[in-house]
């Protein structure tokens, strides 16, 4: 089932939340809508689900080329998973998953035995077969979210939509559950869109990422594409930590400006920062070490440029840092291994 969004706008009162969104998602893809809060990603998802209606005038949503803009949520055959699960509190896990099957019109409603076998199969899929008779309140957050997913899958939706599915879980469960989602998607291959504000999650799980900002899609591409060739400084900045090596207005006293010319913005990831004891490179920036911290296999070094008193974060491998033997107060020189320059920007 491919999903296409054409020229969708949405306003809440005077604020425009979505501005003429166009998006095309291919059959079987797993797509992340990534953006900061207020970027309109959840609204877009809810419009695709049919929970919100786009502003009248032009915009449409198509499933497999068929216009479903006028259809209600019940007719779109979507599976929706909420951030806070929205499980039916008064029903057991089994009944929660069976709800959609029991809600079918009686002609297409499976009989009790079929429902049981279907629910049991889904319980196996989410590895919660032993907890079928529990109530949602007796489950952990991760278990609840898996039940919510099974409940959505029970009606064999054409599209699976997940709204910040792991947002309410702690870090370990999150990581575990998103791997599980990835594997699940590989087995059932239903077109899936999930909303997240966690760039790591989006890059790790999805086939393609749509980075959103202020009601518009800034870039839509594979995780590698958006990470390596960000279309705008915003995308670059949203996808990870960064250092500003030169910026408009400060070009005059910026000794390092590779690629970009006048008025350019040059951004460098911390792991692309190279620290050396001697300034052989003429572009090297003199800096002072402020702090050296160990984070797992990486050493995070906080530096201060001597010329502009701005801080630079660097991530060094433990070998490199051993070789340099940095201490706070040391004078060093900074260059970059790889940098991104943007001509036209607005932050």
């Amino acid at each position, binding site marked *: 089932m491919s999903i296409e969004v054409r020229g969708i706008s949405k306003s809440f009162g005077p604020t425009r939340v979505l501005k003429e969104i166009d998006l095309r998602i291919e059959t079987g893809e797993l797509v992340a809508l990534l953006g900061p809060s207020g970027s309109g990603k959840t609204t877009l998802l809810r419009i695709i689900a049919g929970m919100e209606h786009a502003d009248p005038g032009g915009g449409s949503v198509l499933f497999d080329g068929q216009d479903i803009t006028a259809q*209600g949520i*019940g007719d779109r055959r*979507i599976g929706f998973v909420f951030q*806070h699960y929205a499980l*039916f509190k008064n029903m057991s896990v089994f009944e929660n998953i069976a709800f959609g099957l029991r*809600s079918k019109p009686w002609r297409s409603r499976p009989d009790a035995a079929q429902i049981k076998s279907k629910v049991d199969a889904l319980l196996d899929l989410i590895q919660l077969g032993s907890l079928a008779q529990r*109530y*949602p309140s*007796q489950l952990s957050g991760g278990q609840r979210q898996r039940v919510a997913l099974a409940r*959505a899958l029970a009606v064999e939706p054409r599209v699976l939509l997940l709204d910040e599915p792991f947002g309410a879980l702690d870090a370990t469960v999150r990581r575990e559950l998103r791997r599980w989602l990835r594997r699940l998607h590989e087995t059932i291959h239903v077109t899936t869109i999930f909303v997240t504000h966690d760039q790591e999650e989006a890059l790790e799980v999805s086939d393609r990422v749509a980075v959103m900002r202020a009601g518009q899609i800034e870039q839509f591409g594979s995780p590698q594409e958006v990470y390596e060739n960000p279309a705008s400084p915003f995308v670059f900045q949203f996808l990870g930590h960064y250092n500003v090596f030169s910026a408009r207005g400060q070009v005059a006293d910026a000794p390092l400006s590779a690629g970009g010319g006048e008025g350019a913005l040059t951004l460098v990831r911390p792991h692309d920062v190279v620290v050396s004891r001697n300034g052989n490179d003429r572009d090297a920036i003199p800096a002072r070490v402020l702090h050296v911290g160990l984070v797992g296999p990486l050493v995070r070094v906080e530096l201060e440029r001597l010329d502009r008193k701005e801080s630079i974060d660097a991530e060094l491998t433990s070998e490199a840092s051993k070789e340099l033997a940095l201490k706070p107060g040391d004078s060093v020189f900074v260059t970059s291994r790889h940098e991104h320059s943007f001509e036209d920007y607005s932050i």
Partner: protein
Amino acid sequence: MAGAPLLVSASASAPPVTRGHPVWRRLLIAGTVVFLTIFIVLPVVNVFTQALSKGVAAYTEVFTGPAADQPPRNLAEKRKLSTRRAQSEKTASAIAMSVGVAAVVVPLNILFGLMAAWAVTKFRFRGRLLLIALIDLPFSVSPVVAGLIFVLLLGRTGLFGAWATNFVWPDPTSIAWRGFGGGWPIGFDRFNSGIIFTPLAIVLASVFVTFPFVARSVIPLMQAQGTDEEVAALSLGASGWRTFRFVTLPNIRWALLYGTILCTARAFGEFGAVSVVSGNTDANDTMPLRIEKLWNEYDNQAAFTVASLLALLAMVTLVLKTLIDWRAARSARRDTGATLQAGPPS
């Protein structure tokens, strides 16, 4: 006794504050006990002692009529007996009227209350806050004024007076089976006309006065629960009715029952509004109106007997309310997952 939000009562199990001087604590407790004794326990006890002051037989006679175990010996006794019989018939009819009115008013207000609560909590629209304020209006208007509003609207010279005086409605007690000879198989034998000073006006006034109870007890809960569960049910293809029946209703059932009980209690107890619209005729008396009449006729024992029935109803209400609070608190704890460690439910 406005419908307190159930969510508040759910936290009633929080540990009490035990700081402060023990003397103060004892004084406060003693003061409360003395107050409750003087203002609640003593009057209720008085109601029952007065009602039973002439024995159990006299108590039941008030609404079942005098027992005809021995025939009257003279004309004076015969006359006395027939007055007593007439009085007890009026009292019995007042009880029937109260039960009948409540039987119509309570279901109506469950329906209206749910509709209002649903509209106000599950949708966002212009004027929503105004609507919430309007739901509370009957609490802030004096019941007598409420009754008067209906008289001024529907009375002979009222705004809709011409229409209301000619309005014809079937007497629900005259329902009869007609058979399939043609037309409706079920029909009514008697019809009433007019609204004001008829039982219909009593129903209208009671609906107005008791409207907020259900809505008020359900709204806070529905507000707290949001719409996610309903939307989830709809996305799974459930119909609106199925969503309401299996998702919304189970979530609000204790609050709804609570509101219903308060609404019932008030429907039986309402005096002011009903007094204005009933027209002071014996046939339109409800229990509170009947109590007033008996009292004015210096029949204290009978007045207290009817009052004791209302007091009994109040006590049943109180027990049910406590029971519901307890169950609601328990299910709230279950829903928020406080029993996470508990094993599977038996």
